[in-house]
C-alpha cells in the first residue's frame, strides 16, 4: 500500500464493517417467528405480541405459521411426550439459519410437571438458544429474552451461502 493511500480519508459516505457483522445486524432485526403454542404461556405470548407490549418494536412482529418461512421457533408451553415428535418435526422443517427460544419454565425444564407425561425441558429434543424463565414469563421478560437472542445473533459466526463448508 502506498503512503498516499494510507493518509487519504475515505471518499464518499460509506462505512466499513465486516460482512459477518452486517449479516448479524440484518438478521437480528428480521426474525420471523413460529409460535409453537401449547399451553398457558400462550396467553402471555399473546400479550407480548399485542399492543401493550408490542414485540414488533424489536423486529420480531411477523408471525409465520409455516416452519419453512420462519427462523425463530418459540416453544411456548409444556411439551408432553405425545407432543415431542411434533416439535422435532417442526424444528427439522425449519430452514437454516434458525434459533429456538424456550418460553416458560415448562419448556425450559418441565417446570412443576415432573411426571409421566411431560418432557423435562425441550433441550432433550432440540437445541435451544435462549431460555426464558417464568411460569408464565411476564411480557417484559419475553422482550428481554428476545434482546438476548438478538445480541447472540449479532455476535454469531454466520454461515452464509458462499462460505466454504468445513468438511
Amino acid at each position, binding site marked *: 500500500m502506498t503512503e498516499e493511500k494510507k493518509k487519504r480519508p475515505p471518499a464518499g459516505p460509506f462505512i466499513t464493517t465486516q460482512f459477518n457483522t452486517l449479516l448479524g445486524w440484518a438478521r437480528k432485526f428480521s426474525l420471523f417467528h413460529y409460535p409453537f403454542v401449547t*399451553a*398457558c404461556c400462550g396467553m*402471555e405470548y399473546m400479550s407480548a405480541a*399485542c399492543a401493550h407490549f408490542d414485540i414488533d418494536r424489536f423486529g420480531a412482529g411477523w408471525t409465520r405459521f409455516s416452519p419453512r418461512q420462519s427462523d425463530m421457533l418459540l416453544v411456548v*408451553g409444556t411439551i*408432553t411426550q405425545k407432543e415431542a415428535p411434533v*416439535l422435532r418435526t417442526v424444528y427439522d422443517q425449519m430452514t437454516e439459519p434458525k434459533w429456538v427460544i424456550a418460553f416458560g419454565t415448562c419448556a425450559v425444564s418441565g417446570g412443576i410437571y*415432573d411426571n409421566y407425561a411431560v418432557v423435562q425441558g425441550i433441550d432433550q429434543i432440540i437445541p435451544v438458544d435462549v431460555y426464558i424463565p417464568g411460569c408464565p414469563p411476564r411480557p417484559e421478560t419475553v422482550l428481554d429474552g428476545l434482546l438476548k437472542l438478538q445480541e447472540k445473533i449479532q455476535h454469531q459466526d454466520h454461515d452464509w451461502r458462499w462460505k466454504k463448508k468445513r468438511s
Partner: protein
Amino acid sequence: MPTRIQKQARQDTMLLNMGPSHPAMHGTIRVMLELDGERILNSEVEVGYLHRGFEKTCEHRTYFSLLPYTDRLNYVSPLINNLGYVMTIEKMLGVEVPERAQYIRVLMSELSRISDHLTCLAAMAMECGAFTVFLYKMKAREFLWDVIEQTTGARMTTSYIRIGGVRADLHPDFDAVLKKAVEETRLVLKDVHGLLDKNKIFLNRTRDVAVMSREDAVAFGWTGPCLRSTGVSYDVRKAQPYLVYDRLNWDVPLGERGDNFDRYLVRMKEMEQSLRIIEQAAARIPESSRGFIAEGMAPAQAIKESRRQRVRKDIALSPNLEGSEEARYPDILASDKGFVVPPKEETYTSIEGLINHFKFFMRGHGIRPPKGDVYFAVEGGNGELGFYIVSDGTDRPYRLHLRAPCFHIVSSLEQLIRGRYVADVIPTFGSMNMIGGELDR
C-alpha cells in the same frame, strides 16, 4: 400408526390433517378431516397433546400445595379454577368464609370470566380475519389483568384464592383501577359489537353454521355459554348460588339457535352482565375493619427484636407490602387456625407462631379433610367446572378429578362439522373455546 379415519376412509376422498400445531388450533388438538372436495364427510378429533398428568400429580401434593396446579387448568381464567378447587375443600371441611373475602372472590372470578370470554372471542374473530377485534380485546384484557395483578401480584397464575379466604386484601387503589378497566372494557365491547354484529363476512361464517340443538347439547353434557346459546337457561351461579351471587342483580343471557353466532353473542352479553356484577360487588363490598397501615417494622428488625421481647408493633410484611398481615386476617380469611397459613409476623416473632407454621406445612399434618368424597361445581369460563375429590383422611387427596367443561364441548366437534366446509371448522372451533390445560389436564 393408522387412525380410525385412515382405516375407514373411502378411496376417492382426501384426508386433511389440521394440527396439532396449527394457527387455528390454538392450544394443541389434531383434527383429521376426510374431504370430498371442500365438504367434510368425516372427521376425527385427537386430543391429549397437553395431557400433563394433573390428576396424578395432585395425588402426590398436599391440599395446600396443589393450588398452583389449578391455576394452570383453564389458564385464561385461573382465579375461577382456584375458586372451584378451594370451595370443594371448604365444602369438605365446613369452613366459613368472611363476607369481605366472598365479595373479593366474586370480583376476581368475574374479572377472570371477562378475560376468558375476551380471549376466546378475540381468537375466534382473528381466525375469521378480524384482526382489529383481536387487538382491541387484548387491550381490554390487559386493563383487566392490571386490576388482578395489582391485588394478587401476578397477571395470570395467581394462586390468590386460598382455602378459607383469599391471600391478601384488595389494593388501596383497587377502586380507581377497576373503574378504568370497566370503562375500557365497555368501550371495547361497544367497538366490537359495531365491528362484528352486522359484519357480512362474520355473519356468513357464523350464522347458522354448526347449529347445536338443545337435546344434543344436553346429551353432550354442554354447560356454560355454549349451552345457554342453545336456549337452555342453566348457570351454576343461578341454579346453585354460591358466594354472594344470589344477592346481586344480574341476568343470564340466552341464545336462540345454538349456532356459532349465538355462542359469540352470548359471550358478549355475558361480559356485560359480569361488568354489572363487578360494579355491584365493588359498591357493596364490606369495608375492611382496619385501615391500611402505611408503615411498619421491617421484617429483619422484627425478628431481631423478637429475640428479646414480644413485638407489639405492626410489621410491614404482607404480600402486597401494605402493612401488617395479621390485622387483615379477620376480613379475608377464615378464623380457624387449622386451615389457613399462620400470619408471617407471628411465624417470625413468636414460638407459637413458628409451631403453627410447622404444623401447617409438615408432612402428614396441615389440612386434612375427613374421609369421604365430594363434588362441587362453580361456573367457570366454559361452564360447570366441577371438582370431584376423594379424601382418605390424610393431607393429600386420594383422588382428584376435574369435570372440565370444554372436554364435553370439544367432544361434539366431530358432529358439528360433519357435512360442513373446511372453512367452517375454524369459527366452530373458535366459538367452543377449547382450553388445552382444562381439556387434557
